[in-house]
């Protein structure tokens, strides 16, 4: 059976509406409903409140939502071991560089939000932090609206070994994505909001299925549409398997025997 990993999920309350994924049980119920085995989740408080202070996030309820930023496993699992849902949610820390930032953390997969958190992706601090992530074999999720394409180019050129997954790229960005993906083989994309007609197939055929990862951006963007699309892609089954979860497993450093979903 195909394994499905959403690389782009938000856990916790968001400011624009009441959502089922406001807590971990609610998010897992959503994953079950759409038959998604695992989700890489950033916490909403890190996006919308305070990315720097894990202590602040815990104080405001992150722990009770099952997203403690302390004690994550080497893969960043957000669920306690031994529960039925152990490992379903992979905590993705949101990092901020510089003296007012978070430090490089320990996660295998991290997210950077330069525009939202007001730092320069390709500035001295940003490059230093990304370099630390690259040195430990990690990769980054980077929102398309979060940094200019020129900054993504500078980052990828400076750190060619760093996997960069551009998320929430929208349906109008294909030419700009092609510019970056032609130049930088470690740049990939997720499928959240990549909703242009046949865009997923075009990217998978031109750049290889190993550079396309299933993601939703939910609950800010839609999860049902990308999930349904995944099952109807006009690609070889092996390619769809990579997009669905194989590429995410590699990004997270999950060996086959560690897969329990």
């Amino acid at each position, binding site marked *: *059976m*195909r394994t*499905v990993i959403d690389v782009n999920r938000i856990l916790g309350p968001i400011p*624009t*509406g009441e*959502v089922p994924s406001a807590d971990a049980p609610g998010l897992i119920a959503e994953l*079950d*409903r*759409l*038959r998604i085995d695992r989700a890489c989740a950033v916490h909403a408080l890190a996006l919308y409140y305070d990315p720097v202070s894990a202590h602040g996030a815990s104080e405001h309820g992150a722990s009770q939502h099952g997203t403690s930023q302390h004690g994550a496993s080497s893969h960043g699992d957000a669920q306690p071991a031994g529960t039925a849902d152990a490992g379903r949610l992979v905590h993705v820390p949101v990092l901020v560089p510089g003296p007012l930032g978070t430090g490089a953390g320990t996660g295998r997969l991290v997210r950077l939000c330069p525009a939202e958190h007001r730092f320069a992706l390709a500035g001295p601090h940003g490059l230093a932090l990304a370099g630390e992530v690259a040195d430990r074999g990690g990769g980054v999720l980077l929102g398309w609206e979060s940094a200019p394409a020129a900054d993504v180019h500078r980052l990828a050129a400076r750190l060619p070994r760093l996997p960069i997954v551009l998320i929430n790229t*929208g*349906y*109008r*960005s*294909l*030419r700009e994505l092609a510019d970056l993906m032609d130049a930088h083989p470690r740049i990939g994309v997720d499928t959240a*909001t990549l*909703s*242009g*007609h*046949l*865009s*997923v*197939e*075009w990217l998978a055929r031109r750049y290889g299925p190993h550079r396309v990862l299933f993601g939703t951006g*939910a*609950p800010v*963007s*839609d*999860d*049902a*549409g*990308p*999930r*349904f*699309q995944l*099952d*109807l892609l*006009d690609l070889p089954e092996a390619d769809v398997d990579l997009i669905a979860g194989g590429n995410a497993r590699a990004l997270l450093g999950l060996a086959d025997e560690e897969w329990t979903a």
Partner: protein
Amino acid sequence: MTDGDTTEGGAVEGGAVDGGDAWRGRVIDAHGHLGSWFNFAIPDPSTAGLLSVMDRAGVATMCVSHLLGVGPDARAGNALLLAELARRPGRLLGYAVYDPHDRQAPARLAELLDEPAVIGVKLHPDTHQYPLDGPAYAPAFALAADRGRLVLSHGEHGSAWSDPERFATVAARHPGVPLLMGHAGLWPAGFDAAARVADRCPNVVLEICGSRMTARHLARLVATAGADRMVFGSDALFLDLRVGLGRVVLAPIAPADRDLLLFGTMTRLLKGTR
């Protein structure tokens, strides 16, 4: 909203999610396009490619306008539309684009509505930068009323040209014309406003395509406006048909509401065209 249990959706079969398949092969997509567009790339803009996706997704019929017509040249775009409708009988139905700046548009629309496969008129107030309730659109509504045809207009909450309130204005002027509000307001902040207009105006129907719509928003619209006042549209080949379809198939709504969205409401509207 239809009585009955809300579906859990997401039926698991062989690792795929299909939400049940009673809808498959019956879907009518109320908002589609042919052609290409200037400010982003469509990797395969061919009609054959679009039909291939329709086949893969179980969509029986798509109601389309031509993007050349929506953009700079309504006359040429409508001519291309007619040619494609003739090549794809039964799979494509057409909306003739009405350009409010073309003084010959009323006469041309009258001819286009003689074509059996042309089910209505497509208006795009934002592209043409002309308000939906402006006088230059009045002949289009009058012809639609006279010929028993639908009007589909781009609808965008907050737009100077196509805010939902402008739909309320023209719907009241032309109560016999089924008026599809494209995108149901487009922006999440506008979905409630769109539903309120549908509540006030019995001839307004909400069409639900758009990149900002989610299954959660859709379920809320069904609860407030009712699935019998809503139709599925994908905005293909702008957008990927499968993404819009999946948003309905896997939404947390009752199967009966899902079926109204996917084909029931549009079947009723098409039966009403003469």
